[in-house]
């Protein structure tokens, strides 16, 4: 047995936490961009596109993230596409994030008064012009608090990437626990790590929400 001090554990876990953050940021940025595209499909005027958007969202919401990872990691391998755990995790989390964000944002779009659609339509705007200039600027503003709130789910979701062998904080923790036979200490540190990453996001979400309520404008 290798002897590990508490500092040794922490040092390794910090490196793992770094990868958790990298994966979270990538998933959030790409997932956000893709979520916007899914949103546009989901609220398009074409019923067939709408249904496609709905099916996409339902699939990612109603299957476990772990299964989505397996499908990507082993599924793509079946087609001879050999992908790294990092890429598989990135892809999986991006798709997962895009589906949830699209659904959150759809709720925001639908919470706008119907009059905003009607007034912009009466000004001879196309559907795209309505979305671009009238609907999305308002919807995305009210979407800020739930979006920041959802980022917590993304950070915690990255833990699943450990199962396909991507070495982030959870995987690092598992390896150290196996080497030191001190799972409780290690996983307590891992949990603390997640908490330190997520708590600021929760606080930020609450803060922007309060600020939007107070301002109520723009």
């Amino acid at each position, binding site marked *: 047995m290798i002897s590990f001090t508490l500092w040794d554990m922490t040092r390794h876990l910090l490196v793992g936490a770094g990868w958790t953050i990298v994966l979270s940021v990538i998933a959030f940025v790409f997932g956000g961009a893709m979520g916007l595209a899914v949103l546009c499909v989901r609220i398009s005027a074409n019923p067939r596109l709408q249904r496609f958007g709905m099916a996409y969202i339902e699939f990612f919401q109603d299957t476990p993230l772990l299964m989505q990872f397996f499908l990507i990691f082993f599924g793509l391998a079946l087609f001879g596409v050999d992908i790294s755990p990092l890429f598989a995790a990135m892809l999986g989390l991006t798709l997962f994030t895009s589906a949830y964000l699209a659904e959150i944002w759809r709720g925001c779009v639908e919470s706008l*008064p119907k*009059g*905003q659609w*009607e*007034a*912009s*339509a*009466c*000004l*001879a*705007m*196309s559907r795209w*012009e309505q979305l*671009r*200039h*009238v609907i999305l*600027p*308002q919807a995305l*503003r009210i979407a800020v608090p739930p979006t920041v709130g959802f980022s917590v789910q993304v950070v915690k979701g990255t833990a699943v990437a450990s199962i396909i062998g991507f070495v982030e904080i959870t995987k690092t923790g598992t390896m150290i626990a196996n080497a030191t036979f001190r799972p409780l200490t290690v996983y307590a540190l891992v949990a603390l790590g997640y908490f330190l990453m997520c708590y600021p996001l929760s606080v930020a979400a609450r803060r922007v929400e309060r600020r939007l309520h107070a301002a*109520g*404008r*723009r």
Partner: protein
Amino acid sequence: MPLVDVNELHKQFGENEVLRGVNLTVEEGDVVAVIGRSGSGKSTFLRILNGLETFDAGHVRIDGERISGLESDLRPLRRKVGMVFQQFNLFPHLTAGENVMLAPRVVKKESPVEVKALAEEMLGRVGLGDKFGAFPDQLSGGQQQRVAIARALAMRPRMLLCDEITSALDPELVGEVLEVVRQLAAEGMTLIMVTHEMRFAREVGNKLVFMHKGKVHEAGDPKSLFANPRTPELASFIQSVG
């Protein structure tokens, strides 16, 4: 050729027959006041004229062109037909000036300099030249509604539809909005307005349309209709609001 030509217009919401054969023609420069009890179909009728609502049977011609269901591209129609709503429906994330500039800029692709001058002119016309940079929530209801009128005018429509545009206003703010409409009428703008302001309908309109149970029950010169309603329904309506 009339600007608006409506022939045997029918509309149903489920089992509810809202319009049962509406006929109406509106000439260029007409100021038409549409009155009637709630549920008489007047708002639905107005909303059909710019395609916000579909209809089931009949013909609607605007400026000689037939409009049909929602599936067709309504944008050419809507460039000609402006609309002002009961609830103003200003875009709250944009200033008064930006509200007015938006459609000329993105729909008509006019240059920023032109659009700015246009917005200043239109806001001036409704007496809000000094509110260019104000956001809607910094304006009173009457001011918001005047911005909404300026926004519709900026598209230089052939006619303006007004759907109970003073009904959501505090009584002391009604006058300033009606004053703007009065001025538009005097300038020759074609107006079709659903209204509960009977005095306004009588004084400013040159045509009164009384809708009852999904039909044009009576139509004609406002002053003579108010003085001598030909049907008991109009007589009792005038009495009840009056």
